[in-house]
């Protein structure tokens, strides 16, 4: 005879799941929507492939019980996570629920945060964090409920740090993000703030005002500001854009360091030549040009995915494909400080080279570097230390590396185009112009006494410039084999595609000697 079975328990399970699905309740969810933000479950549904979300800890929260032990009410924990798929590939997703106590610690179950991070690490799956609120950060309210305080420690931070050297981590700031939430946002390989709703601060305006600085939350933590300082990588126009950018970013990377990125044939012929490139660099050294147009012309069509456009602008960084192979692209932007390395451009380069090294992406570097930015402000910004750090990351990288000198390469920053002690897969355009110092900047210092002794210093200066100009031809450098090849610019794409093909079999999965630090 069959007994009644487990129907009562199955009923309770359904009931608890239904309660958790309600998030912070109708009113709070309606408020979230009125603010222009999606409820967390909707966010997860829109990010992942349809119907692929499998939640873990789906009934975790805090129950209130009657004297007889029956469940009276239930408040779900304010962070949920699980596995799902993005473009068919398994991943881990975690999402803060702002509708439950604004994401604060008193409604958090910290072990869920730990498990989400650990799951990504141990299953070697990409991790996407959807952040909204304080990310389980502290609130002084906790003092009253727990009756004691604690020495601060961040749950699962060992995994957060380790994941930066193990699996791709994307973090999206989809609301006001503070404290621990802010630390979780920037501790990623790719962080975005939603420009309509995203704000980020260590501490919000209420706390800052209590310390005497009266500011609005926009003055304190505007998304635009953080994208310009590089606190986050980029901005998303809205949540849909944030999800689209997440999918795109992940498409260039392997699921973990134990794999290599997939090749995705683009249909763009690898031998495609672009005649316009022969004329793109102006002969007049004072004039500049648009590097992004060169990138569009030489990379697989439509494949360039720029990262960090609003900060460290003299260096362009992004992921792309060459004959279908995933590559990390660095290029100078002469439209910003002439392409000179600023302190923030150097910081951006460190971050990007470490990303390429971690996930085994060959690097392609299109060079137009007149040097480090010079002057009082540049010195005050600590340019040389940040620049030397960029040099260190370039010299420590072991992924295949290819350089195309489009125009300038001067001084220490110019020399940092590649680790010159490795085999140099390198070429230059005929517009190449290089040395320790540009003639324009270095002439007066080098010929100071000769110019001072001259009856007509201006004329003397002009004569010296002409003399030096003759030795400046890139062909004289190539004649001495101090640059490997000078190519016709239109043939740059075939040169790069061949590099990508040669690099592919050299890539080795595994943990890099150094991981990425936020």
């Amino acid at each position, binding site marked *: 005879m069959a007994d009644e079975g487990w129907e009562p328990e199955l009923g309770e399970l359904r009931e608890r799941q239904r309660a958790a699905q309600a998030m912070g309740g109708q009113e709070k969810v309606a408020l979230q929507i009125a603010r222009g933000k999606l409820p967390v479950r909707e966010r997860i549904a829109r990010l992942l492939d349809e119907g692929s979300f499998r939640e873990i800890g789906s009934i975790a929260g805090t129950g209130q019980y009657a004297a007889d032990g029956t469940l009276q009410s239930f408040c779900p924990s304010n962070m949920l996570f699980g596995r799902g798929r993005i473009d068919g590939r398994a991943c881990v997703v975690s999402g803060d629920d702002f509708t439950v106590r604004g994401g604060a610690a008193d409604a958090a179950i910290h072990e869920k945060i730990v498990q989400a991070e650990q799951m990504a690490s141990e299953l070697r799956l990409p991790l996407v964090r959807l952040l909204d609120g304080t990310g389980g950060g502290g609130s002084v309210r906790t003092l009253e409920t727990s009756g004691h305080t604690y020495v601060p420690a961040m749950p699962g931070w060992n995994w957060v740090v380790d994941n930066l050297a193990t699996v791709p981590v994307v973090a999206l700031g989809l609301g006001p993000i503070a404290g621990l939430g802010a630390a979780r946002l920037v501790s990623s390989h790719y962080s975005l703030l939603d420009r309509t709703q995203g704000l980020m601060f260590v501490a919000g305006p209420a706390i800052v005002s209590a310390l005497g600085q009266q500011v609005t939350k926009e003055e304190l933590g505007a998304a635009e500001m953080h994208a310009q300082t590089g606190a986050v990588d980029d901005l998303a126009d809205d949540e849909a854009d944030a999800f689209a950018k997440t999918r795109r970013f992940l498409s260039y990377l392997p699921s973990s360091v134990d794999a290599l990125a997939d090749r995705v044939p683009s249909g763009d012929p690898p031998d495609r030549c672009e005649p316009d490139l022969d004329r793109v660099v102006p002969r007049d*050294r*004072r*004039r*500049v040009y648009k590097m992004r147009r060169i990138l569009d012309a030489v990379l697989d069509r439509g494949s360039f995915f720029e990262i960090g456009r609003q900060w460290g*602008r003299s260096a362009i960084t992004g992921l792309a494909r060459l004959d279908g192979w995933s590559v990390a692209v660095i290029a100078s932007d*002469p*439209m*910003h*400080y*002439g392409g*000179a390395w600023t302190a923030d451009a150097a910081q951006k380069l460190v971050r990007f080279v470490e990303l390429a090294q971690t996930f085994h992406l060959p690097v392609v570097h299109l060079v137009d570097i*007149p040097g480090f*930015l*010079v*002057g009082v*402000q540049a010195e005050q910004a600590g340019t040389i230390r940040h620049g030397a750090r960029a040099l260190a990351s370039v010299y420590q990288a072991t992924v295949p590396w290819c350089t195309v000198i489009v125009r300038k390469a001067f001084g220490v920053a110019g020399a940092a185009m590649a680790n010159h002690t490795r085999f140099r897969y390198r070429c230059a355009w005929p517009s190449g112009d290089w040395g320790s110092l*540009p003639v*324009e*900047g270095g002439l007066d210092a080098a010929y100071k006494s000769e110019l001072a002794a001259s009856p007509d210093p201006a004329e003397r200066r002009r004569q010296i410039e002409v003399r030096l100009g003759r030795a400046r031809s890139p062909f004289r450098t190539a004649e001495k084999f101090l640059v490997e090849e000078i190519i016709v610019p239109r043939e740059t794409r075939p040169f790069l595609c061949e590099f990508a093909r040669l690099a592919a079999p050299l890539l080795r999965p595994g943990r890099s000697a150094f991981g990425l630090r936020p």
Partner: protein
Amino acid sequence: MPRFVVKSTMAGTVARLEVERDEMVVSEQTLLFLEVMKMEIPVESPAVGRIVTVHVDTGDLVAQGQPLVTLEN
């Protein structure tokens, strides 16, 4: 009509102005040139619009973030 301010993304010297007040400009049109690192770098209009104010003059030193031109569209 919405107004927006084109701010300098870098420090430099205004080499020359390419537009004046009330002029209509199109997206990516050069508004002025900044001299930086011995090069003349164009500052382009981010959108179609009419120039309401030109905040700087030839020879001015500008800092990063300083307003250069106000547009209205």
